[in-house]
């Protein structure tokens, strides 16, 4: 399947959720979510902590498989196919839907190897030097790295490490990049740089970003999904659900739901 085929008619639905409920050891974390995330746009998932936005994000490329006792009901459709169907290979899913994590997590290898490793396991056969350079440039971290490609990824600052992780994800050329609060561990200047990187990338990738920062959602995203959490009767803990999903401008300027309005106004003070 050639990815280009899906790019002709837009707006296309990239990831669709049909009645998705995710449970940890039998107790639901998020419930009954319907949501269609468009292709080649930046979609932000916002909401108070504990609303399950990260859990939802991790369900898009089956990272939740790593957590014991985590189960998903309903369907997550990627290009129309349920990625939780029995005959789907999670590794294949992750090769096409990459992820950038909350904490920068470079491998304890050189900067060059950090990028080459992912490319290699994805079967890259082209010019590796070129790919490394291109990816670092796209992630806006080439200037800081070009003279120390053989040094450990840990020799970079936190913000640079995170952009290295973005470069590493770009290098595998997924169709979608998931970002789980990529700036939460970073200082404001690094955050700004990452946001610029996201702007650069949005023309080539579908990006889904979880953020707790309203301004950031407003700055980087085209679409915004607001999640909220509620106490449930007879259950311990909170259960998250999708309140509203719309264009970012609408969510911030004229939200339909009162909960969204309260949250946004509360956040902005």
């Amino acid at each position, binding site marked *: *399947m050639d990815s280009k085929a899906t790019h002709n008619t837009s707006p296309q639905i990239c990831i669709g959720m049909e009645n998705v409920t995710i449970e940890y050891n039998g107790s639901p974390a998020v419930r009954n979510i319907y949501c269609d995330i468009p292709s080649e746009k930046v979609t932000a998932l916002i909401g108070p902590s504990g609303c399950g936005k990260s859990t939802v994000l991790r369900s898009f490329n089956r990272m939740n498989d790593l957590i014991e006792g985590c189960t998903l009901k309903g369907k997550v459709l990627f290009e129309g196919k349920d990625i939780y169907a029995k005959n789907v*290979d999670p*590794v*294949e899913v992750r090769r096409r839907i990459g992820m950038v994590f909350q904490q920068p997590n470079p491998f304890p290898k050189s900067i060059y190897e950090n990028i080459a490793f992912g490319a290699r396991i*994805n079967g890259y*056969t*082209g*010019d590796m030097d070129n790919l490394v350079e*291109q990816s670092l440039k796209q992630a806006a971290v080439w200037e800081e790295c070009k003279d120390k490609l053989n040094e450990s990824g840990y020799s970079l600052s936190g913000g640079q490490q995170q952009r290295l992780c973005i470069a590493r994800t770009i290098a595998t050329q997924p169709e979608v990049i998931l970002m789980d609060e990529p700036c939460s561990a970073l200082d404001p200047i690094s955050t700004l740089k990452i946001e610029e990187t996201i702007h650069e990338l949005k023309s080539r990738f579908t990006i889904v970003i979880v953020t707790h920062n309203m301004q950031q959602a407003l700055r980087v995203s085209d679409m915004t999904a607001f999640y909220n959490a509620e106490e449930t009767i007879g259950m311990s803990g909170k259960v998250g659900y999708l309140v509203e999903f719309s264009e970012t401008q609408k969510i911030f300027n004229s939200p339909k739901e009162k909960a969204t309005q309260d949250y946004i106004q509360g956040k902005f003070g």
Partner: protein
Amino acid sequence: MERMSNSGTYKKKGDLYYNSLLSRNLYNNSLTFISGILAIIAILPLILVLTYVVINGASEINLAVLTQLPEPPGEDLPSAGGIGNAIIGTIVVSGIASLIAIPIGVGGGIYLAEYSRGGTFSKFIRFGANVLSGVPSIIAGVCIYSVIVSTRIILGSNFSALAGGISLSILMLPTIIKTTDEGLKLVSDDLRKAALGVGASKFVTVSQITIPAAFTPIGTGIVLALARAAGETAPLIFTALFSFYWLDSPEGILQPIATLSVLIYNFAIEPYKAQNELAWAASFLLVAFVLSINLLTRWIGKRGKH
């Protein structure tokens, strides 16, 4: 929209469906299978050893075996007597070892955790404790033999329960130091500051605040070291030696003494079936003791966490 200039160099990404014939998936599944087999092989010895110790040993256990003296081997007897004196001997020798190793070990651990400031001396002691725990147990036996047994330095006695106990204490010492050190390090510094803050002396802080707070980890560490020592044989074969008689007076600790572990060693290689059976009986007792101690400390440790 054009992607990266060199995007054509990736092999076509496949569809999402799982293909078990893909070399990647064949490789993965076979490795997962192999690692599972390795894990099963790793637990097989325990199951096999326990099964045979129970089959051959438990059936031999009865009141007579537990309370009688062993018969000296020499001919094929219907019964080789019992292991009564060896049970007592194991308790006595490990008791002597504990009396020596516990105070020194706990004291040394207290120094490392409460007094040292990471200087050369404490680094060396930690290092030395680790090295000492790697010294082969037979070497401890050899040394005690040449210092105590062959020189008859203690009241003219040569092979004795005391010599056996001392050589076991060498093996217990590093373990006890390490568990005390680590146990005390787990105690929150706030507790120490609180005690010192109300004007308690260092001795009072350690003896009444931190040691009680770290009692469970230190205690379990000591009990584990004791269980380990009770099963040791190599340091005893030419220090405590063996005896076919009871320990009948306090001075008896200056005489050779029987222990379960040396009894197993001596009787295992005897050509007589009755003696071999006693060795299995002693093994059953020893294994039951050691394993129950281990499981018990595990359970206590787990309970402590909640």
